[in-house]
């Protein structure tokens, strides 16, 4: 905790590219009904980055346990969880294509039947006694992360009376500065529910939706054992100009 080592110093000291909001869902998307009362209506106030935005929390291996990226084992009580065994892997890059090393990636999901281990989930699909449904990993020096899990099932939710979420895994990513903080969801190639989902359809740009759909990656699969999906994550880029020069130059 005393020696922050989250990012290469030259990359970590400059301000971020402005966020392109056209590829993100706006706050107010009436097709996703919960957004109606939870969406700010005033314009966001644009802030040039200061130290408060270009810095962010630094995590290390001390924060993680050895099974944190193995959802097949990290809650196993009596055996393996039920479901298709999968690996999810990819890289965390910035918009300039540079890897983001040592950044915390967290993920959570329903079990193979589409049920979450959560007090508030009342779907009648059963809880799996051997599946917790969450994990986390730190990216390596090339920005790579991976974890092992079972493929989550789709589940119904109260939006329209017949709304179903496509199979998905929730992701939380930090990056090297607080302005890169992101939560998103990964979907699976070929899932027919993606195009019918109100949360997916809150995204205005079809290409941006495509980038959330992980293709199957047979080359990364383990024969006779585990299928793999690949999901690369891109966080905001940083200017190459050193921050201090820009600020102090007046």
């Amino acid at each position: 905790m005393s020696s922050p080592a989250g990012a290469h110093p030259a990359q970590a000291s400059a301000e971020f590219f402005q966020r392109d909001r056209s590829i993100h869902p706006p706050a107010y998307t009436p097709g996703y009904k919960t957004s109606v009362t939870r969406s700010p209506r005033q314009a966001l106030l644009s802030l040039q980055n200061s130290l408060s935005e270009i810095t962010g929390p630094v995590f290390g291996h001390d924060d993680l346990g050895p099974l944190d990226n193995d959802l097949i084992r990290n809650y196993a009580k009596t055996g393996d969880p039920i479901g298709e065994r999968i690996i999810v892997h990819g890289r965390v890059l910035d918009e300039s294509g540079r890897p983001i090393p040592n950044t915390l990636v967290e993920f959570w999901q329903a079990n193979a039947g589409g049920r979450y281990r959560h007090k508030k989930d009342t779907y009648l699909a059963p809880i799996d006694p051997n599946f917790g449904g969450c994990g986390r990993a730190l990216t390596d020096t090339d920005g790579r992360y991976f974890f092992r899990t079972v493929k989550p099932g789709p589940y119904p939710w109260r939006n329209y009376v017949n709304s179903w979420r496509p199979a998905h895994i929730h992701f939380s990513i930090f990056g090297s500065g607080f302005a890169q903080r992101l939560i998103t969801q990964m979907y699976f190639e070929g899932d027919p529910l993606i195009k019918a989902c109100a949360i997916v359809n809150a995204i205005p740009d079809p290409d941006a939706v495509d980038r959330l759909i992980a293709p199957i990656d047979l080359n990364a699969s383990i024969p006779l054992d585990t299928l793999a999906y690949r999901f690369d994550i891109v966080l905001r880029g940083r200017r190459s100009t050193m921050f201090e020069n820009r600020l102090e130059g007046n």
Partner: protein
Amino acid sequence: MTDKLGYLKETTSQTAGPYVHIGLIPQQAGFDIFETNFGNVAVGPKTAGQRIRIEGRVFDGTETPVRDVLIETWQANAAGRYNHPADTQDKPLDPDFRGWARAGSDFKTGIYTIDTIKPGIVRGRRGRPMAPHINFWIAARGINIGLNTRMYFADEGEANAVDPVLNLIELDTRRKTLLAEPVTRDGIAVYRFDIRLQGENETVFFDI
């Protein structure tokens, strides 16, 4: 995937959904899975600085407390320096302070709390001092992209008056949405910071 200049596109945001607790604060979801858990206590016994508690609720557009919200805070230490390599101010780092905390609001009352220290003044752009403040990031079901705001301290009038960010906000009523009022309870300074997602006193949110 890339544009004409070869830049990649940022990954699109999606809502954290109703079960954000499972991934990020599983103990609140009702189960125990990790050896080390992130939480709402940012301080350790050796952390330098004045202990404070931040307490509040997040309200939706119908004035209803949001009871499934996730809040993260990021702040400088008591000397006004962030624990990050990009902060090269000539001030001491505090090895016992990461500067980050995460809290879920209570499922019944909607109240969140953060136990931390009061941050110092941080140098802002062009060397202008920024008043003590805590950066907030808010995610929840129904929030399509995480919301950024800042909490300032109502009892830092002098510093607030020259703060470059507060001074970007023209309307006094809007500026006030970022000011947390202090109360003392059981000997600890408690700052009350409610956030309004929508409506008459909508909190100022930033595009950072």
